[in-house]
C-alpha cells in the first residue's frame, strides 16, 4: 500500500540497462528514419532551384504536382496496375486456401501445391521481369529491329494469347494496355501464393467446432463459405488489402524494368509518361535525374504518405472493430439452433 514499504526488487536497479539496450534502435530510428522524413517534408515546402520557378510560395511544389499531368498519370498507372493484379490475386488466393483446407474435399498433395504456388514470391523482381519478357518475345529483342518485328511470333505466352484470339500490333510488351496487364500478371504470379498462405493460416485459426456445428445443422458448402469462412476471414482480407495497397503504391522495380522492354523507353504514350510509370518511379526520377527536383519529389512523397497513412489508420479501426467476429458467428449459430 505504502510506496516506501514496498519490497523493492533487488533487480530493479538493473532496469536502467533497458535504456542502453534500446539506445541503438532509437538513435538509428532518429537518424535514418525520422530525420529523413522531416527533411523530406521540409523539401516539399522549399525551392532549392530558384531560377526554376519564380514567385515561390509555401505550397508551390504541391501546386506544381497537382497540375502535373505526369503525376496524375503515374498515380492512375499505379491504380490500374494494382487493381488488375489485386482482384484476381485475392480470388485465386481465397479459392486455393479454401480448397486446401476443406475437410470434405481432402485434397492430396497440398504441401506440394503450396510449395509450388509460393515459389515465385522468392524470386528477385528483376529476374522475374526478364523471365517474363522471354515468355512474350523470342530472344533478347530490345533495340534489335529484326527481332522487334518477329518478336510477336516469339514467346510461348504470346502464342497462347494469339491462339485465344488476342492480336497486338507488334508485341504485347509494346502495347499500352497489354504491358500493364503483363505487369499485373507478374505481380499476381508473384503474390497470390503469399496471400494464399496467409488465408490458409486464417482459416486454420477458425475453430473446427464452428464448421462442425454448421455441418450438423446441414449447411451446404456454399452457405458455410458465405456465412462462416468469409466473415471470419474479413479482417485478414482487409489487412491484406491495405498492406497490398501500401506495397502497391511503392511499386517500383517491375514497372521500372518493364519500361526498358518497350520499343522506346521515352515514347510519349501518355503525354510524356510511359504507360508503366508508377508514382514511385515519378518520385525516383524527380529525385535522381537532373535537375534533381527535391521539392517536387518531397511534395509527391508527402501526398503518397498521407494517402497510405489514412488507409493504414482506417485498417486499424476496422481490425479493432472486427476483433470478436468469431464470437459473433457463434452467437449466430446458437440463434439458428434455437429456431
Amino acid at each position, binding site marked *: 500500500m505504502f510506496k516506501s514499504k514496498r519490497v523493492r526488487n533487488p*533487480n530493479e536497479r*538493473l532496469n536502467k*540497462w*533497458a*535504456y542502453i*539496450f*534500446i539506445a*541503438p*534502435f532509437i538513435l*538509428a530510428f532518429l537518424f*535514418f*528514419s525520422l530525420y*529523413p522524413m522531416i527533411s523530406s517534408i521540409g*523539401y516539399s515546402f522549399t525551392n532549392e532551384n530558384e531560377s526554376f520557378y519564380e514567385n515561390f510560395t509555401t505550397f508551390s511544389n504541391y501546386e506544381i504536382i497537382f497540375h502535373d499531368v505526369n503525376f496524375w498519370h503515374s498515380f492512375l498507372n499505379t491504380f490500374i496496375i494494382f487493381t488488375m493484379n489485386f482482384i484476381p490475386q485475392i480470388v*485465386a488466393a481465397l479459392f486455393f486456401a479454401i480448397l486446401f483446407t476443406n475437410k*470434405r474435399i481432402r*485434397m492430396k498433395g497440398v504441401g506440394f*501445391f*503450396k510449395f*509450388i*504456388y*509460393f*515459389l515465385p514470391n*522468392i524470386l*528477385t523482381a*528483376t*529476374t522475374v*521481369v*526478364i523471365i517474363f519478357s*522471354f515468355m512474350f518475345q*523470342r*530472344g533478347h529483342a*530490345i533495340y534489335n529491329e529484326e527481332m522487334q518485328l518477329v518478336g510477336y511470333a*516469339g*514467346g510461348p505466352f504470346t502464342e497462347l494469347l494469339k491462339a485465344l484470339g488476342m492480336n497486338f500490333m507488334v508485341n504485347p510488351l509494346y502495347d499500352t494496355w497489354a504491358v500493364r496487364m503483363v505487369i499485373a500478371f507478374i505481380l499476381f*504470379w508473384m503474390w497470390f501464393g*503469399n496471400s494464399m*498462405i*496467409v488465408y490458409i*493460416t*486464417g482459416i486454420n485459426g477458425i475453430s473446427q467446432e464452428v*464448421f*462442425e*456445428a454448421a*455441418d450438423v445443422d446441414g449447411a451446404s458448402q456454399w452457405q458455410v463459405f458465405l456465412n462462416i469462412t468469409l466473415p471470419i476471414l474479413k479482417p485478414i482480407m482487409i489487412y491484406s488489402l491495405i498492406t497490398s495497397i*501500401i506495397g502497391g503504391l*511503392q511499386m517500383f*522495380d517491375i514497372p521500372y524494368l518493364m519500361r*526498358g522492354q518497350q520499343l522506346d523507353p521515352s515514347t510519349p504514350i501518355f503525354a510524356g509518361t510511359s504507360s508503366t510509370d508508377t508514382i*514511385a518511379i515519378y*518520385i*525516383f526520377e524527380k*529525385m*535522381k535525374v537532373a535537375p534533381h527536383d*527535391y521539392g517536387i*519529389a*518531397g511534395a509527391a*512523397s*508527402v501526398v503518397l504518405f498521407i494517402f497510405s497513412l489514412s488507409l*493504414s489508420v482506417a485498417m486499424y479501426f476496422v481490425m479493432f472493430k472486427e476483433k470478436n467476429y468469431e464470437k459473433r458467428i457463434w452467437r449466430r449459430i446458437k440463434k439458428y439452433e434455437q429456431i
Partner: protein
Amino acid sequence: MSKFNSSLGVRKPQLTAVNIISKIFLYAICILVAIMCIIPIVSLVLSVTRSSAEIDAGFKLEIGNHFFENITGLIKHLQDPDEGGYSIARSFLNSVIISVSSTTICIYFSALTAYACHVYDFKGKAFFEKFILFLIIIPGQLGAVGFYTMALKLDWMDTYIPFIFPAIASPSTVFFMRQYLKANFSREYVDAARMDGANEFVTFNTICLPFIKSAIATMALFGVISSWNNFMGPMTFLTKPELFTLPQIVSYMTTDAYIETGPYYMGILITALPMLVIYFFLSKVIMKGVSTGGLK
C-alpha cells in the same frame, strides 16, 4: 484431422460420379496453376544449358550442352571495358556482403530491443512498445528524398552504409522477436543468470540469443531475401560498376543490345539461384514466417 473429428461432424464424401468428376476438375485446376507457376522457372533453368541460337530459335523445354559456354560468355561479355567492365563474381560477392551484414545487424539489434522490452520494466516502456507498432504501419517512401540528400551531404554515395546501418531500427523484426519472447522466454532464466553473477550484456548474449534461435532463423531468412532482392536502394546509392549488386547487373543487361541470349539467361539464373536454393531447403520455415507475420 483426428478420427474423432471425422466421426463427429464432417460427413464422409460419397463416391458418386458427380463427386469424382468435380474432384478431377479441381485437381486439373491445381495442376494447371502449378504449371503456370513453375514453367517460367523451369524454362530459365533449362535455357542456360542451350546455346543462344537454340534459344532464339524458339521456346522449347529441352536440355542442351552449352552450359559452360554460357558462363564464360557471360563473364567475358561483362568484363569487356566497352561494356563498362562489370564482374558477375564481384557483384555476387557485393550482394552477399550487403545482405549478410545488414541482416546480421538487423537481427542483433532487433533482438536486443525486444529483449529490453521483455525483461526490464522501465519508464516509457508502454509508450515505446506502442510506438514500435505505429512505426510498422508508416510507409517508408516518405523518407526517401531526405535520406538520399542526407547520403549526398555525408558522402555516403558508393558506400554500403545506406544499406547496412539503417537496418538497426527495424520495427517489424523487433515486433516479431517480442512476440516470440513473450510466448517462449521466461524471466526466470535471466534471474538465474543474475544469481550466477552474469553481467546484463553477457546474459543477453549467452542466454537469450541461443534461446530464440528459431525466431532468429526465420527473421534472418526474410532479411536475406528482401536484401538480396532489393533493387531501388542500389539504384539510388551505387554508381560505380565494381560496387554493383546482382539485380543492378540484371537491370544493366536489359538495356544491353549486344549481349547474347545464352549468357543473358545465365546472368539471370545466377541472380535467382541462391534464393531458389534457400527456398528449396527452407520453404517450411519461410511459409511459417509468412503465416505468423501475416497478422502482425
